[in-house]
């Protein structure tokens, strides 16, 4: 099996071959194929939304996705959360010497498929090969740019008392999938990552609903952290009903076993939608008509009291603070 050599990052003929045989082969589109120093973009109108993210996930291939599809979905989703239509992506690879070329090809192919599904073009890129040990197999950075479709754009600071909080589906799937596949955790599960592009669904939402106050994807830090960010940015209290948060039984079971809280686990194909209560039914209808939003449900409401905080009403009817995560969730002792 052929492996990646440092030569492939030299900028010389080996680099050219790598670009042509793997990247251009799968990413091919009129913007990229010119292979100039920069991509020439004409059909894009301001106001624009732009976002960047680097992907270092371990393991690089996991149930429901891989680092390539994640690198597309993650950035596409971030751009879309501004009520925008992502159009172009850049991608930069940092590759470890000795990486199997077949594996690289699998990842690149997966990225191309994800981009096609999300209706975005990968228009420019970069490849670096670093000595063994300098990175863990493959790191990918993607930057996305898109057209903002609505004015004013949804923002974390726009939640208002009287709004409802909707989540588009089950929580914690991606985080638990990754944790359960990490070395050192001998834990088998059928759970798959929810990694998916949300932009087309968001386009339907913002084009049909006159007022969308907040759109956020609860990635790292999970639902609880994202809700806290919104409560802080908007200076409102967010009241969540614990029993209404959709969580798969397998995720609940796995979390209970590992001592984790699903509300703090990452999601890569879910969105939080905050909007006036009068648009609740319309939003749910749009969400539920899409496979990515079929489990969408209202989980809470926005109030004036407890500004800056998230209050969780537990299944028993008690109230408690739902705080931000301090650092990473760590495995417990007993």
């Amino acid at each position: 099996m052929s492996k990646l050599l440092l030569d492939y990052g030299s900028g010389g003929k080996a680099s050219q071959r790598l670009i042509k045989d793997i990247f251009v082969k799968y990413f091919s589109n009129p913007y990229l194929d010119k292979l100039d120093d920069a991509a020439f973009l004409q059909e894009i109108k301001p106001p624009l939304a732009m976002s960047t993210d680097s992907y270092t996930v371990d393991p690089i291939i996991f149930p429901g996705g891989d680092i390539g599809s994640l690198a597309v979905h993650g950035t596409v989703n971030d751009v879309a959360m501004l009520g925008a239509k992502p159009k172009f992506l850049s991608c930069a690879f940092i590759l470890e010497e000795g990486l199997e070329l077949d594996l690289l090809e699998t990842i690149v192919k997966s990225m191309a498929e994800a981009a096609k599904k999300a209706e975005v073009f990968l228009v420019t890129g970069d490849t670096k090969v670093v000595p063994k040990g300098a990175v863990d197999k493959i790191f990918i950075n993607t930057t996305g740019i898109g057209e903002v479709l609505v004015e004013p754009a949804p923002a974390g600071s726009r939640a208002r008392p009287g709004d409802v909080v909707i989540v588009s589906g089950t929580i914690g799937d991606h985080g638990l999938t990754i944790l359960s596949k990490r070395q050192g955790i001998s834990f088998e599960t059928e759970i798959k990552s929810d990694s998916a592009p949300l932009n087309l669904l968001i386009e339907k939402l913002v084009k049909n609903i006159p007022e969308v106050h907040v759109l956020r994807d609860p990635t790292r830090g999970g639902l609880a952290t994202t809700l806290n960010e919104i409560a802080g940015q908007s200076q409102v209290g967010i009241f969540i009903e614990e029993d209404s948060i959709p969580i798969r039984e397998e995720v609940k079971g796995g979390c209970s076993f590992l001592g984790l809280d699903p509300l703090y686990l990452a999601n890569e194909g879910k969105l939080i939608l905050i909007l006036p209560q009068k648009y609740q039914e319309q939003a749910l209808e749009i969400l539920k008509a899409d496979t990515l939003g079929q489990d969408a449900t209202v989980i809470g409401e926005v109030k004036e009291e407890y500004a800056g905080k998230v209050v969780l009403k537990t299944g028993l009817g008690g109230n408690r603070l739902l705080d931000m995560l301090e650092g990473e969730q760590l495995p417990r002792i007993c």
Partner: protein
Amino acid sequence: MNLLNQFKDAKLCKQVLAELTAELKAPFRFMEVCGTHTVAIFQSGLRSLFPENLIHVSGPGCPVCVTHEKEVALFFELAKKDVILATFGDLMRVPGPDKKSLKDLQAEGAKIKVVYSPFDALTLARENPLAKVVFIGVGFETTAPTIAATLKIAKKEKVKNFFVLCLHKLVPPALRALVVDPQLKVEGFLLPGHVSAIIGVKPYLFLAKEYSIPAVIGGFEPLDILQALYLLVKMKNEGKAEIINSYKRVVKTEGNVKAQEVLAEVFQPCAALWRGIGEIPESGLQLREKYADFDAFQVFDLQFPEVPPLKGCKCGEVLKGLIRPDECPLFKKVCTPQHPVGPCMVSTEGSCAAYYKYSL
């Protein structure tokens, strides 16, 4: 409905809560001695539903919290040696000497690996035959059996580079140390379900017989906790002091005999240091002579370093149930989960962390 949900059933819980409230004729002060109970009481929202005259104090039930500052200093010293330190994740953020944590040492280059089980630490030793892998053995009767089992495998396989720093603690001797303290005004104990699953009912009988304090072994779901508290209050009203096992679906009267045998084969009781309490005789576990080759204390010739007490930290008083976390002057001001001063703020199962995280 699956088993997990049955014991969370809101209707049933409200019913038992009403019965508990009706039974409460005077203020009643109970202590739970397990961090998992502490978190369950807060996380489920039970605490906000308790009647006012049910006074809840948390005891020394979180393994990280009771780890003595000298023990912490000891594994910091060990981390600086040429070893791979394997640890449960909870210990990574505990502040040690010079306020650094194992996370800081890791960033500075110390080889520290978070593992989910001691078996993973043994695997680490097998995979790194040239390195010395030391597992930090903290925790109660619940964690000790898997460490004993791991050591039995290591001995059988003649693994030469796996060691355990044994800092295990036993719950019943700590309970005795608490009840003899004249300052402690606890009228009943909610006993730890997991620990009891290993040791059974017998080791607690002294609480009722010698000190006339009722105690109930309870599970961790809201209904388990409410049921246990109801039984405690009922015993008080009837003037009875007994040890009741209300977690029979998990805890057998005799406990887990196999686990007890493995424990006895590998470990023997010894005096142990408890944060905030001090040395308690027969409250720890050390490796028996035939496991001396695996004993980090002996192999690395370790001694507990002298450590000055933490200034202003009242974790000791919190652990003994003398003050509530929010009564500590450092709480939320100097001591936060981001910059924990004492161990009760570090561990997710610590009572200060639970107060900080869940109290509105």
